[in-house]
């Protein structure tokens, strides 16, 4: 190989057969290099098939211009194809510079052919379903495990309040609470406005426009306010928690904490989850108010109901428990989002792909669990008549 080797790439490569009394002679010519490997593979496989009956084969490399690992391996493959059928082969005319390379490839790929046996598609499908079910079980166990560890840490912190990391808590509170206010307020405002507009549009056909206020009031305070906030928080803060903890896990930061005698649950999980448990009810309150404001605005501008009418009607439609239902649910949902985010973060292993995977699954799982939890709350509140 020379510095001006780019030009050599144009050289062709071939394998010419000669016959003598005893057997076949194969003469390799040209450049047996990576760029020609595709055509060389066909040449080599053809030769192996064509001369499969030959008992003695000489492979002559004296006329090679260049040889690299690709070419050397293909010659070795040809050699092995013949010897596997019991033929005697000799490699002749090997230049001094190529000898090391040929010796090297002679040692490789001895254990080839360990490709997995063909598998049954149905079995593969059953296998993946089984694994998925087992994974769901395992992730619920992990969730319970972290909940337990968190409870112990909370009890420990109550006994020794100085162990609470206040700086960290305030930092997370700012990130997940304060900074989420604008986007949460804006989205819930729009949701309130849309519900009101749709309500007025459809209720108008049977003259029940005024009941839109009842609908908006109950829907927003009991369900929509808290759900929209939880979806926003899961997407915004849950994913951030998972990514933060996951990359800390990847860089062994969590192991470092542990070896220094710190409990990762106390240092990392507790401030994050406590911040969420405080922030989500506050955001729910802000979100519900913004949604009602949006609804009121639409009722006024689109439905022709003045703010006075809106407020009077709202006062009749809702009572304190309507508001309490939404607010009671909020901290529990925050807990679920925080737990799922932290569990997924700790589950990240070394690869970048797993960080992405776990962040996605953190968001998907926490939103799903929030909805499931909301269902249980609905049954519970119905049972106690709230």
């Amino acid at each position, binding site marked *: *190989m*020379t*510095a*001006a*080797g*780019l030009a050599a790439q144009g050289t062709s490569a071939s394998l010419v057969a000669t016959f003598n009394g005893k057997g076949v002679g194969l003469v390799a010519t040209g450049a047996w*290099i*990576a*760029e020609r*490997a*595709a055509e060389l*593979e066909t040449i080599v496989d053809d030769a192996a098939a064509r001369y499969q009956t030959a008992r003695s084969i000489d492979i002559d490399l004296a006329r090679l211009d260049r040889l*690299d*690992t*690709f070419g050397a*391996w*293909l010659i070795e*493959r040809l050699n092995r194809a013949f010897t596997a059928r019991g033929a005697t082969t000799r490699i002749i005319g090997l230049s001094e*510079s190529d000898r*090391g*390379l040929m*010796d*090297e*490839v002679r*040692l*490789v*790929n001895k*254990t*080839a052919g*360990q490709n997995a046996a063909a598998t049954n598609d149905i079995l593969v499908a059953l296998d993946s379903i089984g694994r998925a079910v087992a994974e769901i079980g395992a992730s619920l166990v992990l969730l319970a495990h972290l909940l337990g560890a968190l409870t112990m840490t909370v009890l420990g912190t109550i006994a020794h309040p100085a162990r609470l990391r206040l700086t960290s808590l305030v930092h997370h509170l700012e990130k997940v609470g304060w900074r989420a206010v604008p986007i949460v307020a804006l989205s819930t405002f729009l949701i309130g406005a849309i519900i009101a507009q749709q309500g007025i549009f459809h209720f108008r056909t049977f003259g029940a426009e005024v009941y839109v206020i009842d609908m908006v009031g109950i829907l927003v305070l009991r369900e929509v306010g808290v759900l929209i906030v939880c979806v926003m928080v899961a997407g915004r803060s849950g994913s951030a928690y998972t990514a933060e903890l996951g990359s800390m896990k990847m860089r062994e930061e969590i192991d470092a904490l542990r070896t220094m005698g710190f409990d990762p649950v106390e240092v990392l999980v507790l401030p994050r989850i406590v911040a969420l448990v405080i922030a989500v009810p506050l955001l729910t309150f802000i979100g519900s108010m913004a949604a009602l404001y949006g609804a009121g605005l639409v009722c006024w501008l689109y439905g022709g109901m003045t703010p006075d009418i809106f407020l009077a009607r709202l006062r009749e439609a809702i009572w304190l428990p309507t508001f309490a239902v939404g607010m009671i649910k909020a901290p529990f949902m925050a807990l679920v989002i925080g737990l799922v985010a932290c569990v997924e973060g700790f589950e990240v*292993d*070394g*690869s*970048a*792909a797993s960080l992405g995977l776990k962040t996605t699954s953190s968001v998907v799982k926490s939103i799903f669990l929030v909805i499931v939890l909301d269902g249980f709350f609905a049954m519970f509140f119905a049972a106690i008549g709230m």
Partner: protein
Amino acid sequence: MASNTAVISVRDLSVGFGETAVLDRASLDVFEGEILGFVGGSGAGKSVLMRTIIGLLPKRSGRIEVFGTDLATVNDEELRAIERRWGVLFQQGALFSSLTALQNVQFPIREYLKLSPRLIEEIALAKLEMVGLNANVRGKYPSELSGGMVKRVALARALALDPDIVFLDEPTSGLDPIGAAEFDALIRTLQRTLGLSVFMVTHDLDSLHTVCDRIAVLSEGRIIATGTIETMLASEHPWLKSYFRGKRGRGVHH
């Protein structure tokens, strides 16, 4: 074994970030078929020079020629042709974490050459075996490999396309002395069998003693000395003296 043809030729190269100038008119040659050891203090800009040659950092002025072609004048296609002829081993291995060891080695082959899946697999396995790994690592992900194995897989990937030049950024850092010595021997063997030119950034005095044909020293943004290890040991330059003959040096005075 080393010829007089320069495969890499750097002339008056200046590189800087903002106010700070890291390289100030540095000049360096790497000759065909040699292993050049490139040393300098931490933060002196060794990696910066390497990264500038391979095009990861922009230069302020100067000229970089690889295979006799000025890299400033080539178009994208020519640059790809040149890039295909060098392999880079990054300090941390830089293996793709979502691919297995075997897939990491297959990746450049698959992208650059249109070969049958069987041949790609065989060549990739051959490369893994050539760097001293056995076929069991093929299905392992980088996170499941030890530091030494990561370096070997990364070297196999750097060698995947049979390059003419290999850049090694601190190949033995993070390896134990036995592993480092094995890695040095491996680089030497591969360099001989494949006829490589090697540009090796290193801090490892043992590597400099055992495998490097020539050594270049970077200090204060310039190449202050080039030559064999004997030249370095004989030099009276204060920095070279403390580097090669300091407490951690070896050889001349025990």
